[in-house]
Each structure stands twice: as structure tokens, then as C-alpha cells.
């Protein structure tokens, strides 16, 4: 039983982890919790749904969700968040809520409120070391891991990725060392959007596609981003996995209603002990 829950938690955790990756990149570099990340996921789910319906190919769907979500993410930066860059965090937060509502409204107009379902073939599970694992879960885990591999390749093996991490570590230092912030920010928002898009598609395949789906995943994504330490991509994914697994495995103990609140409880507990997050560095008070 625990093993089964663990497996369910892994896939769920990968979805949260990808969403948290999107949140933590923006949080670490643009310095605010992007409340539009959830609805960017929804956009990815719908784009993937449309592409999948037209072609029947999961690969094409993934490409569409990445493209659409990255484009929306970049548009949000250029039109809204860039002009607000020097303003208080609360202004950015409120604007992000506004962007989230705009995306959701657009999707509602375009697709209506009926549920949409990815028509993916369902198959009976295969047995791996005594655990029953559905082939779709394996596929989704593969998709998530591939997406993460690409994201980490960009972050750790390309010049722009190194610059992004440098800005996340110390914006002032990065500025004096000649990093061009605009290019870094464009890359950042594209990458964050793409991660959210893939997460949205995975969530859409696991569940059903509806305009509210992404907004409802926002809280766990925030929790994972903070838990993992703001600006730490590895931490975000790890924390997403921890939360996903903890939510499933703890269900027999806390019950089915409160399992949603678990993300919040874990978050609060961690912040009590480590106010800067689990993996986060202690920043000196200047």
C-alpha cells in the first residue's frame, strides 16, 4: 500500500516540481512569487490538448504546450513585469494575480468551461518489483525527467544559464560583472514558462483540463519553491517530489480532506525552523 502511494506521489511530485521550478526561477531572479505561474500551466494544458486532438501525438502536444506557455510568460514579462521591476513586491504580486485572471478569462472564452480530456490510450499496469505501475505514469515520468534534463542543461551548461544563476545568487554582483540583464530575463521567463507549460500538460493528462486547474496547483508549487529554497532549481524539484510523495503517503494518517492542507503545514513547519527555506542560503543582513 505504501509502495503504491509512493509511486502515485512520484508522478504528482514531478508535476509539482516542474511548477515549482517555474516559480522558483522567477522568485529567485525577478524577486517575486509569480501568481500567474498556475494559469500559465493551464495555458500549456489547453495548448497541448488542442495539439494532441489535432495530431494525436504526445510529442507535438508537449511542443505546443511549451511554445504557448513560454510565449505567454515572455509576453507577461515584457508587458507587465518589466515595467514594474523597480516597484514593491506587493505591486508585482497584485499584477501577477491580474495576469493570471486575464489568462484564465482568455481560456474560458476560447474553450468554454466544459471539461476537456486528453484521449490517451489506457493500459493495465505492469508489475515492477511488486509494484503495479501504469504505463502512462511511466511515460509521464519520462516526459518530466526529459523536461527537467533540458532545463538543467540550460541552467548549468550554457552561458545564459550560468548568468541566470549568477543573477539569482547576487543581482548586484552580476550587474557589475557585465551580465546583460535583459537577455537573462528573457531567457528566464521563457524557461519558466516552458516548465510551467509541461507541468500543465502533465496535469491535464493525469486529470481533466479546465480553466481553474492551474490556479489550484499554485499553492503546492509555492510551497515547494519555498521549501526548496528560493532560487534553487534543484531544491524546487526535490521539494516538489517530497511534497507530492508526502501528500499521498500521509493520506491514511491525516485523511483525504486535510491532505491538501499538508503542503501548507509542511511549509509553515519548515519556515518556523528555517525562515529562509530548506536549501536556501542564509543571506547576510546588510
Amino acid at each position, binding site marked *: 500500500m505504501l509502495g503504491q502511494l509512493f509511486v502515485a506521489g512520484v508522478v*504528482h511530485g514531478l508535476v509539482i516540481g516542474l511548477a515549482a521550478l517555474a516559480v522558483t526561477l522567477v522568485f529567485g531572479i525577478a524577486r517575486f512569487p509569480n501568481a500567474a505561474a498556475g494559469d500559465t500551466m493551464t495555458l500549456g494544458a489547453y495548448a497541448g490538448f488542442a495539439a494532441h486532438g489535432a495530431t494525436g501525438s504526445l510529442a507535438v502536444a508537449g511542443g505546443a504546450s511549451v511554445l504557448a506557455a513560454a510565449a505567454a510568460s515572455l509576453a507577461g514579462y515584457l508587458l507587465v513585469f518589466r515595467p514594474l521591476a523597480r516597484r514593491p513586491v506587493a505591486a508585482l504580486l497584485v499584477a501577477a494575480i491580474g495576469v493570471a485572471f486575464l489568462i484564465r478569462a482568455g481560456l474560458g472564452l476560447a474553450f468554454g468551461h*466544459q471539461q476537456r480530456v486528453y484521449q490517451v490510450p489506457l493500459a493495465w499496469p505492469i508489475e515492477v518489483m511488486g509494484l503495479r505501475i501504469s504505463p502512462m505514469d511511466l511515460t509521464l515520468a519520462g516526459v518530466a525527467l526529459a523536461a527537467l534534463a533540458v532545463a538543467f542543461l540550460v541552467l548549468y551548461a550554457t552561458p545564459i544559464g550560468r548568468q541566470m544563476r549568477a543573477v539569482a545568487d547576487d543581482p548586484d554582483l552580476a550587474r557589475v560583472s557585465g551580465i546583460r540583464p535583459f537577455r537573462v530575463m528573457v531567457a528566464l521567463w521563457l524557461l519558466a514558462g516552458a516548465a510551467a507549460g509541461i507541468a500543465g500538460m502533465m*496535469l491535464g493528462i493525469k486529470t481533466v483540463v479546465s480553466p481553474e486547474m492551474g490556479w489550484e496547483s499554485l499553492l503546492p508549487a509555492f510551497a515547494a519553491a519555498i521549501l526548496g529554497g528560493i532560487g534553487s532549481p534543484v531544491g524546487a524539484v526535490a521539494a516538489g517530489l517530497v511534497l507530492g510523495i508526502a501528500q499521498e503517503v500521509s493520506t*491514511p494518517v491525516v485523511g*483525504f*480532506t486535510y491532505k491538501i492542507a499538508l503542503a501548507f503545514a509542511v511549509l509553515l513547519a519548515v519556515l518556523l525552523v528555517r525562515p529562509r527555506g530548506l536549501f536556501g542560503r542564509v543571506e547576510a543582513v546588510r
Partner: protein
Amino acid sequence: MITQRRTLLATGAALLATPRVVRAQAETFRIGALNPVTGAGSPYGSGMQRAILAAVEAINAAGGANGRRIEVFSEDTQTSPQAAVLAAKKLIEVNRVRAILGTWSSGVSLAVIPLTNDADILLMHTSGAPALSTPPANAKNLGYRFQATNDRFGRAFAEIAVREGFRRPATMAFNNASGIGNTEGFRRAWAAKGNRNGEHVVYEPNQPSYRAELLRVMNTRPDVIVMGSFLPDTTIILREWFQMGVPMKWIIPGWAANPQLVQALGPAVTEGIISVDSVSNEGSPAFAAYDAAYRRATNRPGLDNVYAAMTWDMAHTLALAIEQAKSFETAAINAAIRQVANPPGEAVPGFAEGKAAIAAGRKVNYEGASSVLDFDEFGDVTPDFGVFFIERGQINRRYVVKI
């Protein structure tokens, strides 16, 4: 003096709020279509609203009710009592509607019914909460329920479980009034038959995975799982269940186990599911008329949305009652509703036929699209329940259960 000014104000506002086209025409009978277009009820709300508009179109085409055209003002409850109360106030005070049709969730109906009672107008709803049958909610007997109560559904589920020979049922319920009402109704009825209840799980909406919930109910090795669920969560749960590879029988309410579910999951997953619904008379002429109208309005089959069939019936019942009462007064209309909906009388499938029969002086009995539509002393329908088996992607009715 005050009254006069109030009337003046109200008339002015009503004029403002009324489209120019209509203002030029003769007096109409105004009704409000107050439906859950957004929020939790959104899968059904817009269809419900369109069914009302389509029904009114048909009624007006047949010459209107008691000589007046019916005019519809539509609003969105947002499936939220707060938004619904403001919408209802606006319908009553500004649009001066004489009946409100199609509130869906129990929360919204419970919040709206004090307002309709106070304004002395009818409320026709599809909510399951038993509290809506009796005072204080239904103190003036102006509330009509077009949906079987959750409790009746539960009792029907228990009858079916007995008839199908199940012995160890478990239950899963969506955490809202309707979901829990269904499963608790079932558990009470099941226990009353001297049986033991199995595991009971109440789950939250919009979870990416229901693995934990499924494992919990399956742990007790039930031979059937009785659901109190809606379409999106049923889709996710069944998909997850299928991928777990454990054979299981399901009894699911008809609004969740419907053609959309089959379309979403395919015949393999849905094979053998027992879907239960108040007999929605697919064979009946009323259903055929509704189905055609619904397809025209939404491009979807009428079976997709049982609540739309109910709102279709609301408009018809109301119009027939007005025709029967030969009056536009609430008291007279209210008195006529059971006359036109309940037996005895000539079974009529639509407004035009009913109007003709009433004109000929015959007693009519409207047989609706959603059920045969007979109201008891509480204003609740007492439908029979159709038991459907999903076989190779087809939803086939096997038999009918009477409670």
C-alpha cells in the same frame, strides 16, 4: 407616497434594464434563468440556460402562455450564494420576474428561496438538499424540486445493489452536499435492509491523483463501489482505477456516468459501469423534443446534461400552469402546477399539445423530458430510477427501480 415613488423608481429602472426591442411590444410574462454558468456547476449551467431559452422559444412559437409571450432574463449564480443572492435580487427587483428557474446547487437554492418567498414568486430548482422541501425554506410551498432528493437517489442505489446481488459495497463521495447526500442516503438504506456498510471515503475535488482514496476503499475488498460524484472527478478516478488493474463494479449517478464520460475514457474503462438516473424518459416525445432543441442550441446530445432536461421541463410546467390557471397571479399558477403535471389526465409531451388539450377542456398531465414529473406535497418530483449498463461504449437501460 412612498409606495408611489418606489413604483416609479422601479419602473424607471426596469425600463432602463429592458432591451428597446421588447419595450415596444405587448406585456410579457417575465422569468429569470438563474443558473450556475461558472464555478462548480459550470459543466451544466450554460446548457441549463440554453434549454430554458429553447423551451421558451417553443412556448412563444405556440402563442405564449395564456396569451402572453414569456421573456427570459438570464443570470449566472457563479455557483456562489453571494453572487446568486445579488443576481436574484436584480431579477426580482429590476427585471421584475415572476418566477426563477434553474438554481442548481443546494447552497444557492437555500440562499435564494427566502428572496423568492418574500417576493411571492416561484422557485424551480434542481438541488438535492432535503431542507428545501420543508419550512422554513419552503414555508410558502412556492419551491419546486425537479431533481430527486439525494436521499432518494441513495435509496435507489441500495435497491439496485440488492437486485444485482452485491454484498460488500464501499462508497466514495465528492465532498459537497450532493455527493455526500447520495452516499449517505445509500448507506442508511443499505443498513436499513440489515446489511453492513463497507469503507466510506469522502474526497476533495481537483486532485491530480486519487490513488490513496482508491487504495483505501479497495483495501476492504468491496464487490462494488457506490459513487456520489461529478463528471471531472469520476473521469480521473476511473482512469486511475483502470490503471491499477483491479477489477471492480461501479454504481454511479447518471450525471457523472454519461456519454461524456464514455467519450473521455473509452469503452474499455467504462465497460460494465451501472449508471443510475431518474428516468429521463429517453423514449418519450418530450425527451425527443428536448434532445432536438438541445442539439440545436449546443451541438451536444441531450443526454449530456440531465439538468438541462430539468430546466426544459421547468419552463414547460410553468407555461402549462399559467395556461391552465388563465391567470398571471402566483397563487393561481402555483395551484395549477400539480394539476398540469400530475396524473390523472391526458399525457402531453409539450406545451403546444397541452395548450390544445386545455383549450379543449381536458385535464392534462405533462410527462417531462427529465422524468414523468409528478410532484408530491413538498413540491418534490418522485421519479422512478432508470438503471443503465454501459456496454461497449453504449449506455443501455436494463430496468427501472421504483422507490
